[in-house]
Every structure is written in structure tokens, then in C-alpha cells.
């Protein structure tokens, strides 16, 4: 028990030393949020949401993506390539503990990143935050778990750090731009709008917006939740079959 605690603390400490992870978790989403806020504050979006109702969930969706792909998927490949997990296998620490620590680190990154966005919105732009805190928390946690399982697929597919980095970088474009997280999907031609249906982050954006705006338990939201649940189940199965801590 003591060892799991110490190991988890160390994972988190190391997370705060990864420049790339910090950049994508705490800088890029926050800066985008502020820039877009200055540009589009007065606009209204999809279903009559104002900028903050639409983009607070969006930026947090991006944090979920970057955490799952960079801080988890890529980082696991880096550590595995270095032999870290092989070395740990020689200690009494078991793989369940390593898994637990990785998941806790992921939640930690996402919650802190989300709180950062909320603080900027509240104190930078004096917006009212959601009155559906519980629904939003639920949506956030569910979407995170779904993307964690995709992150583990990245570490199953990639043996080398460069491969994992490539996958994360390539995934970043559709995830950022064809999910509705940054540019509203209506701005794209129909063919690209259709692509958004196969970008998993689209559903995260929708579910987070539903949570934020209190419509998580409606029939509309159910479709998005259903699709994410499917993604979660399929990736969990793939992960369990192919993911390995050591080569």
C-alpha cells in the first residue's frame, strides 16, 4: 500500500517535469481559451450556447485528449523503451500498482487543467460557472476514462517513442479541428463535417457540453454517451489483448 502511494506521488512529480506534457495540458488549452474568448466572446453557438458554455467544455475536452495521448500514451512508450517497467518488474511493485498510478496521474492532470480553465473563466472574464457541477464532473470523469483507454491503445501500437509521438501529433489535428472543440463544425464544408463523426473527441465535446449545461440526462446526450461507451469497451478489449508493460 505504502509503495503504491509513493509510486503514484513520484509519477505525478515526474509529470510536472515533462515540458511537453505541461505545454499541452496547462498552456495550449488555456492560451487558446483566452484568445478565442477575446475574439468570439459575443458569438453564440450550437443550440444557443454562449461562448463560455460552449468553450469551457471544449478546452477541457482538449485537455482530456492531450493527457491521454501525451502524458499517458506517449509517456508509457518512453518509459517502456527506457526499460523502466522492466526494472520495476524486478521489484515487488506489481503491474496493477503501476496501472493505478498511471490512471491517477491522468485524472490529476485533467482535473488540474480543468480547474485552471474554470479559474480563468471566472476571474479573467467574470463568467458564471455551471450550476450543474455534479453532471459536469460525471461527464468529465466518464470522458477521461474513455480517452485513457484510447491512450493505452497508442502505447500498444507504438513500440518506439517516435512512433507514439507521430501518432499523437497526427491525431491532434482532427481532434482539435474536426471535433468542434476549437472551430465550430458549421464553418466546415459538409464532407469535413462528416469526418467529425469518426473523431472520438467530437462526442467528448458534446458530452462535456451536456454536463456543463445540465442536459446530460436527456435523450440527445444518450447517443453521444452510447458511442463513447462503445469506444471505451472496444478499446479496453484491444488494450487488454495487446498492451504490454514490458517487451
Amino acid at each position: 500500500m505504502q509503495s503504491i502511494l509513493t509510486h503514484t506521488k513520484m509519477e505525478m512529480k515526474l509529470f510536472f517535469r515533462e515540458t511537453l506534457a505541461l505545454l499541452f495540458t496547462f498552456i495550449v488549452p488555456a492560451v487558446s481559451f483566452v484568445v478565442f474568448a477575446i475574439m468570439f466572446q459575443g458569438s453564440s453557438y450550437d443550440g444557443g450556447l454562449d461562448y463560455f458554455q460552449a468553450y469551457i467544455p471544449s478546452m477541457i475536452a482538449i485537455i482530456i485528449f492531450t493527457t491521454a495521448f501525451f502524458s499517458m500514451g506517449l509517456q508509457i512508450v518512453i518509459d517502456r523503451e527506457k526499460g523502466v517497467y522492466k526494472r520495476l518488474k524486478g521489484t515487488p511493485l506489481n503491474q496493477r500498482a503501476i496501472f493505478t498510478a498511471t490512471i491517477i496521474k491522468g485524472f490529476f492532470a485533467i482535473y488540474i487543467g480543468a480547474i485552471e480553465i474554470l479559474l480563468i473563466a471566472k476571474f479573467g472574464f467574470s463568467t458564471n460557472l455551471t450550476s450543474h457541477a455534479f453532471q459536469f464532473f460525471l461527464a468529465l470523469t466518464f470522458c477521461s476514462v474513455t480517452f485513457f483507454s484510447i491512450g493505452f491503445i497508442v502505447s500498444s501500437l507504438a513500440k518506439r517513442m517516435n512512433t507514439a509521438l507521430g501518432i499523437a501529433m497526427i491525431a491532434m489535428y482532427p481532434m482539435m479541428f474536426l471535433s468542434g472543440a476549437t472551430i465550430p463544425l458549421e464553418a466546415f464544408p459538409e464532407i469535413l463535417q462528416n469526418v467529425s463523426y469518426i473523431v472520438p473527441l467530437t462526442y467528448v465535446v458534446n458530452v462535456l457540453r451536456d454536463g456543463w449545461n445540465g442536459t446530460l440526462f436527456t435523450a440527445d446526450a444518450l447517443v453521444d454517451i452510447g458511442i463513447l461507451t462503445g469506444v471505451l469497451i472496444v478499446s479496453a478489449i484491444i488494450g487488454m489483448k495487446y498492451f504490454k508493460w514490458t517487451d
Partner: protein
Amino acid sequence: MSYVIEINNIEKSYGKVKAVDGISLQVKRGEVLGIIGANGAGKSTTLEIMMGLRKPDTGTVTVLGMDITNSSDQIKQRIGIQLQQTALYDRIKVKEALELFSSYYEKKRDVNEIIETLGLRPYLNKFVKNLSGGWQQRTSLALALINDPDIIFLDEPTTGLDPQARLELWGCINRYRAEGKTIILSTHYMDEAQKHCDRIAIIKKGKLISCDVPKSLIHSLGNDNATLEDVYLQYAVGN
């Protein structure tokens, strides 16, 4: 004679490559056993099977009287390992690595004593990644000692060290041997092996060619002026 490790006819393939091809070996309590052999001979694979990091395709491994597949948890509490690569997080500091690994074990050796013995004090607040090869090696040796293990496995502990560092490292290894610990290591330095190892196992293409005291190995060449290097050339290379 009590054996702390018994391996019985183990084989291990990676795809088409047969890395270990039917090795049987017994390690005696308190001895320093050296494993020598060419690059790719199967030293690391054999060591990693003994460490419980890889499962042999066939054969059995008993460590401290326990089967390695059934009792790996108990065994891991009582062994210390150093891999050929440093195998640590990029951004961990020496001190943090010591604390982290120490937390994994029930039994702990005094960390300060290990730090003093290995001369790590000035490096405690440095990132392991930024240390020179020799100090990285010493850090991973320190981690191998942190639980005061009965058996210490070292995969090429002196490779890449300068002569003085090698000497100092052997000083440490001998100190632990004097405490009665069993030490199993691989090396490419024949002078070291001849001087410090009680017995030497020669591996060639995944097979154990011989395992004996250095003197007998040299004697077997029929020339008493020969060295272990001659033994190596005779047994470990060629087809």
C-alpha cells in the same frame, strides 16, 4: 552444498532467434559467479530469466528454494538487480530514485550507508539522466542493494567505467560478498572475471559451454601461463 539458484534446461527464443538453448546451472550460496560470452551469446537473457523478468519457454528456475513462477513476490523481496541499461525515468533525481525503490520493499538497508559506500552523496540532487555513465551505473547498483538482498544480479556492472571506477566498483562488490551475499554478474572484462569471480560460466550461442573455477578453466587449456582471455578465445568464440 546449498544452492541458491538452480536452473534446469531452460530455453528462450525471440521469434526465430534462440537466445538461450538448454542451459542448466547451479549457483552456490555466497559465491561470485561470472558469466562471460560474446555479444548476443545470451548472457542478459539468462540473467533476466533468473531475475524473473522473462519467462523461459521451457525449463525450470528455482531461486532461494522457491519456484520462480509461483513465488515471484517472495523472491523479488530478496533479490537485487541491475540491468544492462540504466532503466530509470528520464527526470528522476538520484535521491528520489533511492527513496522510490526503497518504498517497494519490506526489508530496507540503511540508504545512507549505501550512499557513502558508493560515493553518491554529491550526486543526490542530480537527474540520473544527466550523470556520466559511471555514476548512472553506481546509481543502479545502489538500487540493487536497497533491500539488502540475499542475491545480487548485475548485468555488465563495469562496462563503460574508467579503470579507477571499475576498481572502486569491485571494492563495493567485494564488500557485499564479504557479507555472504551471492553475486551473479556478466562481464566482458576477462581480467576482472579471473581476479574476482569464484566461478565462471561461459555461454556461447545460448549454450553453457563450461562452468568452473578460473584456475581449472585455464588448466584445461594445458598451458599454465594461459589467462582467462585465452580461455575465452578457446571456448567462447568461433563456431
